[in-house]
């Protein structure tokens, strides 16, 4: 035990100075308690070096591509692709980092954002229609399959993926709209996607209907 004569208090542990006033302390009882009371926790350095390097490279790439275009002008505004490409990559990465632990959740967020990015790219590159024709239906279809397969492989319990599977199934129905409003030139991927999603949804409702109901009740309680 130590003693601070300024504060007139005993101090436990191995302190050399009084934690209250900062003066040196005297040892009054050397037998007992020469031990630390709290463990020394080393500082938690969070340097994030990899992240910093990636940010630096991304921003440099954008600056350099614009510089090159200014020095060697072209009719095609190609640096914009670098800009969008870097932006898309970071958005995807952010989703994975944010939603990290749960694979179905990551898949769901990816199928929410990738279609938006795809439509944006398609529109920026002269609207050839590939995003609605192929990418979105195939993406939704893939999401359903991947979600089911990973859930089975990683042995997720039903409650950990069922709501995400349900939402993915609902997304999968969206391509019906593409056909109804005649937004697509090649209808086959959209038709397949909508049909498979419908079957997928029916399976969920028939086999896990009560589960979905209680899960919805829980998640949507007001």
């Amino acid at each position: 035990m130590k003693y601070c004569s300024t504060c007139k208090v005993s101090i436990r542990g191995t302190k050399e100075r009084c934690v209250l006033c900062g003066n040196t302390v005297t040892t009054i009882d050397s037998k007992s308690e020469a031990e630390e009371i709290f463990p020394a926790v080393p500082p938690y350095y969070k340097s994030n070096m990899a992240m910093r390097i990636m940010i630096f490279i991304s921003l440099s790439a954008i600056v350099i591509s614009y510089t090159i275009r200014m020095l060697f002008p072209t009719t095609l505004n190609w640096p914009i692709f670098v800009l969008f490409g870097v932006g898309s990559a970071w958005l995807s990465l952010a989703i994975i980092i944010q939603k990290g632990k749960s694979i179905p959740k990551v898949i769901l967020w990816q199928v929410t954002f990738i279609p938006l990015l795809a439509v944006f790219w398609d529109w920026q590159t002269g609207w050839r229609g590939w995003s609605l024709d192929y990418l979105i239906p195939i993406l939704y279809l893939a999401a359903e399959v991947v979600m089911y397969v990973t859930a089975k492989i990683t042995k997720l319990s039903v409650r950990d993926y069922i709501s995400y599977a349900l939402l993915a199934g609902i997304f999968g129905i969206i391509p019906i709209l593409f056909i109804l409003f005649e937004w697509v030139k090649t209808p086959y991927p959209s038709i397949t996607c909508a049909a498979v999603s419908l079957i997928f949804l029916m399976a969920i409702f028939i086999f896990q209907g009560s589960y979905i109901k209680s899960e919805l009740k829980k998640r949507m309680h007001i």
Partner: protein
Amino acid sequence: MRHQEEVKWSRLDNYSKVFPATWSPKDPKVFRLSCELFEAVEEDVLQRALDITMENFPLYRYVLRRGLFWYYLESSDIVPKVEQESQPVCAPIYTGLRTNLLFRVSYYKCRVNLEMFHVLSDGAGAIRFMRALVFNYLTLLYRERFADIALSGDTSSISEQMDDSYNRHYIGKKAFREMARNEKAQRVKAYKIRGTRTDEYRLSLIEGSMPVKAVIDEAHKYNATLTVYITSVYLYSIYKTMPGRNRNQPIVLTVPVNLRQFFESQTARNFFSTIHIGYNFAKNPDDLEHIIRSVADDFQNSLKAEKLNLQLYKAVSVERNPFARLLPLPVKDFFIRAAVKSYDRHTTSNISNIGKIELPPEFGDYIREFSICTSVRKPQLTMCSYNDRLVVSISSPFKETDIQRTFFQTLSKAGIEIEITSNL
């Protein structure tokens, strides 16, 4: 697809709704209840004691999840593991990234720590768990000696433990509606303690352990109770470290009140309210005697049944508002954060006495003391007692220790013997 058993879940009780919204790495809303024994803790025995304790506290198996409109608690099959203390005091528990249990049990040398995310329970709820844990630990360790000792005072059923007492005691009376309306205008901006933040937002904790009797004797010299006396000395310490230009601002302390004493409840979840104790040093004399008299009056006025009912009404009526209920969770979180921030401007600090911890008297030879501390945004005082040991802990996010120094020096000048423990 395999059929699965339906999962149990529960809404959050009133105050719990605030914590997931206001959580941040700076203030993870975690509090720690520690029990220091005279001998080193044995890990495997503590683990077994924890396993036994968990059987009687199903609430502690719940994890926090996000819904569309509210957070909710959901039962899980995660088994809590005892570990040696390796993280800073009151390190974050809920981070939103993983689904984990909302408490952790660790040990270091002679000390057992129970750290808890405030969503799960308040201090009084945590004490029940801690008592059961320590009881099980000591009875396992000294099987023969404590063969026929029982833990008294825990006779509640599981459903009583899970009770949302706020809603059960809510009476939506018109009278309260009007009282609430009349009360609004009186709030004033309180003095804000400033300082340099510690590195990595670690908590600076200084605990003073002292004999209960000496403190009560000193309090009785002023005709005050222990809580009133400590609160007054704390107010005085804040005043002493206040910069001159702020002296016209009042110092306002919030004091959580355990509502279980006023409303019938056995809940293991949150059931507390807060009262305000204020003192303006610009308008009143700055000697301890005057402060104590004013603090005692404040306590007496605030702890009336009517006032507490009003507090309960105010707290519950917000969450019952149909418009508020329909807001999506992120929007709710935003408004809760804004409301808490504006509420914080009216308070200087927080002082909390979770009271006397009672265990069978035979355990006196094995338990040195109990202490409680909490993660904070501004310096806060917490205290609890066991037998004749009162432990007053001041947690602070700042490097400065002037308030702590003044506080403990004032007590030691009054002739109270103090043992200081600190993580600094």
